[in-house]
């Protein structure tokens, strides 16, 4: 079984709840963490995104202002991050649903990795397009 996992070495960190504890240092757990963080990030970003868009209804000028602001590199980078999150989350989510509903396959690790890779590919494309 263990060939399924990229596994960190044994580490001593006691019964406190340190974030990365020895029993967690493997790829599937990181995939889980990534999925959770990306989901959380999206959930925080989404209302902001909606807010900005709804400005179109009330104050179109301000929306334009926002969109100019989006030209800033730092904001570009943030946008890249968000698309990255979305992509990571989608592919992660598809991986989870495949795992749950399709007959279980022995290359979970590969799937997890390719999900992240795919996410990177897409977001980088987006990023390059944007500048």
């Amino acid at each position: 079984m263990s060939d399924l996992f990229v596994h960190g070495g044994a580490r001593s960190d006691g019964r406190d709840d340190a974030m990365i504890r020895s029993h967690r240092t493997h790829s599937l757990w990181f995939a889980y963490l990534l999925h959770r963080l990306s989901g959380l990030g999206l959930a925080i970003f989404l209302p902001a995104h909606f807010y900005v868009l709804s400005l179109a209804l009330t104050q179109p000028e301000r929306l334009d202002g926002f969109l100019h602001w989006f030209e800033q590199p730092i904001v570009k980078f943030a946008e890249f991050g968000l698309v990255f999150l979305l992509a990571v989350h989608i592919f992660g989510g598809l991986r989870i649903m495949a795992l749950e509903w399709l007959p279980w396959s022995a290359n979970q690790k590969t799937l997890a990795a390719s999900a992240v890779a795919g996410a990177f590919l897409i977001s980088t494309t987006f990023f390059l397009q944007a500048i």
Partner: protein
Amino acid sequence: MLDIRLYMLQRITALIMAPLTLGHIAVMIYAVQDGLTAAEILDRTQGSVMWFLFYGTFVIAVSVHAAIGLRVIVAETLKLGGYALNALTWGLCLIFLFMGVRAVMAVTML
């Protein structure tokens, strides 16, 4: 926390969103190629039933999906449960829905 009803809701909404978000990203990649202006976006979307349904579906799905997702995270990390947790889930869902619907209306109506 997550019984089969909530689970199915979360998975089904995820399945609905997957093509929508991928489509959205694709459009954005195309759109941002030469700068993004309010006019451009609105041009494309306003008055379009198709875009209204596209984003409308997304908003409903994401409200349900994210509310359930946050519910799980809150329950597991803050050990919240029972009535408060249900209230939070509904609250989040309604906030997402409200803001989402406003945004969709803004970009697709008139």
